[in-house]
């Protein structure tokens, strides 16, 4: 058991060790779906939801794997869980909001290969969080991802109006902005206990 208080876990995953800007998880959607604030925030919500579901399932599966003494199946079972959770979210979104489904496009199935989600499942296992701690961790990580991607989308929307040299256009510029954001997030390092 990990005695870490819930508030600490929350702050830690949300700001201090922000999944995108400090631990480099979920960079692909961060670079790919951050052109518009609206799409970015929806992507953030979808990721948060998938994180919550897979964190819950990962907790159960881990208990089961320890019970039957098969830790080498951890990785394989986690990835299967995440893939099914993503499939579920995809069906729900397709049913309730076809417009959002089209807007997210290829990035929805790609949540499966979003390392933030598998990373979350692996971290919560290695930190030995109990169920409540895991869920708080998942929500904070999801919100942290959303915060980072929305911030980035906001900056990129403004950049549309700016004159950028041809050479800088595309990934290079986005990476440099991400670097500056990451420096800004380093300021949160003093927050933790």
């Amino acid at each position, binding site marked *: 058991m990990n005695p870490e208080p819930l508030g600490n876990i929350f702050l830690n995953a949300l700001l201090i060790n922000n999944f995108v800007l400090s631990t480099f998880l979920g960079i692909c959607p961060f670079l790919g779906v951050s052109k518009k604030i609206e799409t970015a925030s929806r992507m953030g919500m979808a990721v948060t939801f998938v994180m919550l579901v897979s964190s819950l399932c990962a907790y159960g599966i881990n208990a089961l794997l320890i019970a039957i003494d098969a830790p080498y199946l951890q990785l394989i079972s986690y990835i299967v869980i995440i893939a099914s959770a993503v499939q579920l979210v995809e069906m729900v979104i397709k049913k309730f909001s076809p417009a959002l489904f089209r807007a997210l496009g290829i990035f929805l199935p790609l949540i*499966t290969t979003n390392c933030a989600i598998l990373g979350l499942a692996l971290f919560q296992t290695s930190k030995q969080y109990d169920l409540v701690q895991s869920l708080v961790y998942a929500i904070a990580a999801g919100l942290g991802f959303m915060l980072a991607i929305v911030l980035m989308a906001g900056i990129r929307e403004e950049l549309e109006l700016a004159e950028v040299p041809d050479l*800088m256009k595309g990934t*290079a510029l986005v990476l440099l902005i991400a670097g500056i954001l990451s420096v800004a997030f380093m300021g949160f390092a003093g927050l933790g206990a």
Partner: protein
Amino acid sequence: MASDEPTSADTFLRGFWRDNPVLVQVLGMCPTLAVTNGVINAVVMGLATTFVLVASEVLVSATRTIIPKQVRIASYILIIATFVTMADYLIQAVSLEVHRALGAFIALIVVNCIILGRAEGFSSKNTIGRSILDGFGMGIGFTLALLALGTIRELLGNGSFAGIDVFGPSFEPWVVMVLPAGGFFVLGGIMLLANVVKQRQARA
């Protein structure tokens, strides 16, 4: 790509520069940025990824006629996860220190988009031999990109190369380079350089 039948050498070589997975296709960003704060970490990560890439491409290519189309992605993920588990235990057995430094990122090779991308985009349509070539080419290209990043970040951030002191004690390290922000800056810089080179080539 498969229809115009490129030569074997071309299949092997294009991962190095023209279709470099990191610099051109912008795939596999997470491990690229996360483990390149040192040369050793970068090389181990590159080799582990190459191993998983080649092994999975071979198996995917060998089973390409057996696996039904509808469940192919799920099957590929399972194949990849199996080889990653193997690589994970192997690194743990060889060097506990490196395993601890890389942490969860070895396990995260599973979700490295390069591997799934090559499995789906290349080896599900090509023979085993070509898949091996492609796997090695892409893997080496990935390792080279990681090595470039790792070298720059360790040299500037630590004044050393693979743990060996280069600049001597009077060097003031640029701490930001080994921190997360440095990863973004260096990769952004490398991509800028690649853009410059490509623009020159296009003009010539």
